[in-house]
């Protein structure tokens, strides 16, 4: 099993969720995060003084999937979240050693 961490633009969340649902993925966990990257932050003004806000709002989606559908999942996320403009985000794939469904105490792939 792998943990797929995708950092995406917030307004793409709905599309990513639907893309994942379409390929049969039934679970994911989402966190509000702020991203710093090549996409530069914006300038704000407050009482006459400008300042830059370096961190931009992003959404991190974490999806645990069996090994065999990792690439399909990654593709789905890429497709749904890509705008082609800087700041689209990243996907990272991490190994998972175990997964447990709390409700049933099932373990392994059947837990996700």
């Amino acid at each position, binding site marked *: 099993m792998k943990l797929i961490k995708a950092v995406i633009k*917030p*307004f793409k*969340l709905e599309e990513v969720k639907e893309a994942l649902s379409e390929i049969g993925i039934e679970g994911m966990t*989402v966190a*509000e995060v702020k991203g710093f990257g090549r996409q530069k932050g*914006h*300038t*704000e*003004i*407050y009482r006459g003084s*400008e300042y830059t806000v370096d961190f931009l*709002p992003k*959404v991190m989606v974490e999806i645990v999937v069996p090994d065999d559908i990792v690439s399909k999942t990654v593709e789905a996320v890429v497709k749904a979240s890509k705008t082609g403009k800087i700041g689209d985000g990243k996907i990272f794939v991490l190994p998972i050693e175990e997964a447990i469904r709390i409700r049933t105490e099932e373990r392994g792939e059947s837990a996700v």
Partner: protein
Amino acid sequence: MLLGFVLASAVPHAVSGEEEEEAAAMSASTEAALAPAALAVEEGIDYADEYYEMVAAHGDHAFAFNFFVTSMLWTVIAAALVFLMHLGFATLEIGLTRQKNAVNVLTKNVFIISIGIFTYFLIGFNTHYPLGDWIIPNVLGIGGPLGEDAATFGNGGVGLAMSEYGDFIFQAMFAATAATIVSGAVAERIKLGSFFIFTIILVALAYPIVGSWHWGEGWLYQLDTSFYDFAGSTVVHGFGGFAALGAVLILGPRAGKYLSGGKLRPIPGHNLPLAGIGVFLLWFGWFGFNGGSVLSAEPADLGLVFSTTAVSASSGALGAIFFSWILLKKPDVTMALNGVLAGLVGITAGADAVSIMVALFIGLVAGLLVVLSILFFDKIKIDDPVGAISVHGVVGIYGTVVIAFFNPDISFVSQLIGAVAVCAVAFVIAVVLCLILKATIGLRVTPEEEEEGLDLAEHGQEAYPDFAKSSG
């Protein structure tokens, strides 16, 4: 002895040397100042005499002067209450839109009331009340700034017991309302600059010109049976509501609200308690809006108007709460809030012309009507974040027309003519204005700016920088 009316000195009151010396002398006499007044009266001390002289100066009209003083006081207090309605509108609109646009909404609302008062002084008041000085008789008069001798006593008898300053300040607070109503409907997507221009024209020209047809004693007033609109269900609210409809038609709905396949995705307001504050403040201010429209402190009307206003708002709320609970299975608090406003708009045309029991009925129906109207406009993809078109436009016409059934002195036909004429003209003006703006400097922000939020895009500011935002 008849001293003449000291208040008539309409030039601003300067501090004259002698007066001050007198005053100094007076308050220096500490003991006298603190002596029980009974004594004062008996001994006939100066300061009691001073009032006496001022009032007695009016001779036989001294009674009348005191009534005028009280009435004028009520006028300026009512003006302050109507002023506070603009805070109500601001918080309602902020509450019912998203946090990413809150700075923009606030800016618009500060601008609206400011430009409203500003232009009403420079041109609006004398355009609204041409006092016979028409360019096109009974249709169009354009005036200049309010005069400097506006402190006069007696501006139209019992029916207008206030100085012209009083009349100005009270009416000035109304003037901005039309634009505020539009503001809520076009929120979250209109360009700030374009909205400013739209507002200036609407408030400085369109509103007073159309308003002159009724309150300025133009053609609506001249109908066989005068069009009747006590505090402005039509000439303020209907006008604003249909201007909003026109603007929204050209502007289009907010991105993401109407999905492909005819589905609708509501865009919830980000702060419902703030919207609630707005509605309570509007209700509060409406006591000045309707109560002040008595145009004097005449106690009979005042009591009736306060009572009909409060009862209609209440039954509007109850109507909307229970109707939405039945219709939608859940008591939708935003419907309750709109129900209050519907009750208020609904009674505004006839607050002094119906009994409380009728007001209760008018409000109740307004509460049902507003729920249906909001659902209807959403169905036909007219996106109105705060429900302004329904609350002010639809209910405004309803409130204007319905009173003909309860008061024999009011003509159904005149009411219909008035309501339709004013609303239609407001609609056309808004459509034309928006089309011109669209063709020139652009009416709507870009999709990216809309997505990012107008606060960052147009202002480079965040309303709540310390709070984490949610994007589910």
